């Protein structure tokens, strides 16, 4: 930042609060009016969003309630769905802080679980278009899982991993090996559903494959990690990048490994189809709630969606508990100062390897579940871009903060799946320019990474501890600034 900008910022901070609030509100009202004159929905959308953010910051209770009513009632009349969302946000925000901390995740989880039922009644957002459908939701959740897994490596332990896609690929291929016709000379069936008993190949139950894939990928993480983790940060990034390029190349060329004719990955054609997940007829009869076979169900996307949410819950729970465990505190200590951590008796190699293994573990589950959902794995799915894409989710959301990572990952995965295409369509109707926006997806992530690292390195929803760490070198502030929380 140039000196003039710093001075201007300081001068702005010195103004009394009333002046600053009035200035910002005036600025936003001007933007909203300009947008209203241009594209009406965009103006209303901006006004709603800005209003929502401002309302929550009003201290005076009666005034706040009045503004909240003034925001909610017209929204309810014009767009009932938006009105309900607004009301729900306000209700949760009005709860006292200790209750709110517990209620917010429950409300978010409830909204997510019920999502397939109300998605068709929702409105379209300006620029981004319609809300994602349920199948997109499954992919989004898979990416959120991967981001939460990568957050363990990058956010907690501070090890930059540029080859996370390798773990994703390992999980996906493990699932494919154990649930398809890939090895026709083997004959092993255990708990798989929807196939005839004499079908060749290895067919295990999907519920068994997910942990197998996770453990296998975790082991791969340890094997990759053991020799490389003693390297310093940027060298480690390069080595992981190398692994991230080597493994997909093995997947691409794996239909004839070293000229021996051994077909490991079926090369560029990928492995497809995979067995369907399900609980089998016996369990289905005993507990009708459990579906026999996902693919025979009329609403298979919903089943996949709810299963994905269950897996995500497990991932988030483990990640959250691990952060507060002895191991998690050791990770954060290493991230903050490796030498000091070692001096305090933390075994560096073992702790880092655990971080790597845990990150790989969840990447493996996510990859395996994605393969099962798509019923296929193709080597073309595992590019370096995906590694950076997942990294971008973690950075945007806020390294180290699970909730931030979930929000960032959900948003970016939505952009990647539907949002960018919708944006392109919106641009061509409203601006009359035709840009193939999804083609420039990686450039857009590049811009996001650049802007976040330059202007808000702690991410959208920061981890408070990380903020201190990131800013201590940049601005000359006391190490622990007392915050009125």
């Amino acid at each position, binding site marked *: *930042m140039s000196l003039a900008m710093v001075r201007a910022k300081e001068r702005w901070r010195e103004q009394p609060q009333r002046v600053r609030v009035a200035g910002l509100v005036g600025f936003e009202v001007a933007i909203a009016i300009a947008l209203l004159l241009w594209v009406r929905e965009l103006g209303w959308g901006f006004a709603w969003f800005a209003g929502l953010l401002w309302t929550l910051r009003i201290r005076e209770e009666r005034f706040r309630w009045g503004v909240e009513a003034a925001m909610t009632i017209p929204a309810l009349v014009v767009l009932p769905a938006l009105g309900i969302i607004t009301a729900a946000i306000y209700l949760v925000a009005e709860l006292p802080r200790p209750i709110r901390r517990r209620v917010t995740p429950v409300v978010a989880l409830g909204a997510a679980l019920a999502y397939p039922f109300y998605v068709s009644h929702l409105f379209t957002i300006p620029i981004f278009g319609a809300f994602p459908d349920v199948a997109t939701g499954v992919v989004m959740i898979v990416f959120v899982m991967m981001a939460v897994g990568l957050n363990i490596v990058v956010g907690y332990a*501070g090890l*930059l991993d*540029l080859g996370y896609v390798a773990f994703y690929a390992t999980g996906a291929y493990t699932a494919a090996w154990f649930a398809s016709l890939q090895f026709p000379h083997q004959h092993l069936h255990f708990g798989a559903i929807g196939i005839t008993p004499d079908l060749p190949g290895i067919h295990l139950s999907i519920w068994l494959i997910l942990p197998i894939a996770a453990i296998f990928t975790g082991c791969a993480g340890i094997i990759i990690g053991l*020799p*490389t983790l*003693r*390297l*310093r*940060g*940027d*060298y480690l*990034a*390069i*080595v992981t*990048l*190398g*692994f991230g*390029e*080597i493994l997909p*190349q*093995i997947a*691409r*060329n794996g239909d004839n490994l*070293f000229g021996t004719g051994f077909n490991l990955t079926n090369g560029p054609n990928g492995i497809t189809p995979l067995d369907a997940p399900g609980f089998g007829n016996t369990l289905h009869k005993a507990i009708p709630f459990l579906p026999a076979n996902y693919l025979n169900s009329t609403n298979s996307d919903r089943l996949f969606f709810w299963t994905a949410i269950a897996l995500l819950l497990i991932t988030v729970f483990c990640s959250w508990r691990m952060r507060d465990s002895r191991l998690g505190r050791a990770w954060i200590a290493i991230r903050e100062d490796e030498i000091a951590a070692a001096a305090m008796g933390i075994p560096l190699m073992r702790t880092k390897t655990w971080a790597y293994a845990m990150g790989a573990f969840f990447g493996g589950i996510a990859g395996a579940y994605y393969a099962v959902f798509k019923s296929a794995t193709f080597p073309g799915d595992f590019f*370096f871009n995906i590694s*950076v894409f997942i*990294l971008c989710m973690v*950075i945007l959301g806020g390294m180290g903060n699970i909730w931030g990572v979930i929000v960032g990952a959900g948003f970016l995965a939505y952009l990647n799946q539907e949002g960018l295409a919708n944006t392109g369509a919106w641009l061509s109707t409203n601006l009359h320019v035709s840009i193939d926006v999804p*083609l*420039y997806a*990686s*450039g*857009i*992530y*590049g*811009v*996001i*990474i*650049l802007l976040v*690292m*330059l202007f808000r*390195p702690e991410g959208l929803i920061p981890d408070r501890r990380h903020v201190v*760490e*990131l800013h201590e*070198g*940049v601005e000359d502030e006391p190490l622990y600034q007392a915050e009125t929380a």
Partner: protein
Amino acid sequence: MATPTHASVAARTRPLDVGRLLQGGLAGLLVLAFLAWVVVNFVEAPSDSTNVILIGITLGCLYALIALGYTLVYGILELINFAHGDVFMLGGMITSTLVGTVFGLGAGSRGVVTWLLVVAALLIAMIFCGVVNATIEFIAYRPLRSAPRLAPLLTAIGVSFILEDIALAIWGPNFVSVPQVFPESRLFTFHGIVYEWDKLIVVLITVPVLLALVWLVQYTKQGKAMRATAQDMDAAAMMGINVNRTVSFTFLIAGGLAGAAGLLYALYVTNLGFQQGFQLGLIAFTAAVFGGIGNLPGAVLGAVLIGLIQAMNEGFVWHAPGSDWTQSIVFSILILILVFRPEGLLGEQVQEGG
């Protein structure tokens, strides 16, 4: 660039270090197996193998120009400039436009005017890439100089993606073909060994650029400032060196080298895709690490070796893995070097590496 020396190696190694011995033995075996493979190939097909070596040296020259950019920047800022490969790609793209569209050169263009135009394109590509690289440093790295180490690395990746998409927007998703301006006619043939003019031209342009770089770094005041900044930025600033300007200058030089490499690659290979910069950049980075990052002769040596290995892998007839595996082989070398000898072939033992 000079790497800071620390306590001597001998003092730190214990008298009988089994792990080190084992490592040395394994590395020796690996090198021996590789040499045996090369020898068998030469016995099986002598002329083909010699051609492969000639291709490898040409490739190595190209990689050397790119690898020097990585090594210069790493030497001064300890930053892996991921965007460097894409700057190289932009150089190639600019060349394709200049040579093909602006100057209207074709496959048959010969004569003094053609050569002058190629030299003009070389200068324009070098200046363009140098300015782009210095701008990247100003926007994306300078504000983060005091931030944690990983922050500029992340912005470097971001910038690399942005540059790729700029090239995608301007030159399109398909490979851009460049007219064959370098003559492909044979310089000499000897028992099946063929050496074409275009390979010689690549070497003939690379070597003076490298010599100019050595002169710049070793014998000019600006080069002295660069070396001083690389050794200790704070101390250099106290000695009255304008550190920011020196860093910008280094990025300018690195970008200029990438621009030269881009022109040579575009005219030698005659096609170029927007995603190639990143891949070739990684190969060149491997070369820089191979030779010892931060070490200028090391980068050239590493680049020639990597170029030879790549050419052998793709061209040898006896048990060569083939071009499907080039990336895997190059990255395996990278990983092995980083894990077992992070200081590279010519580098000195540095504390941070191991």
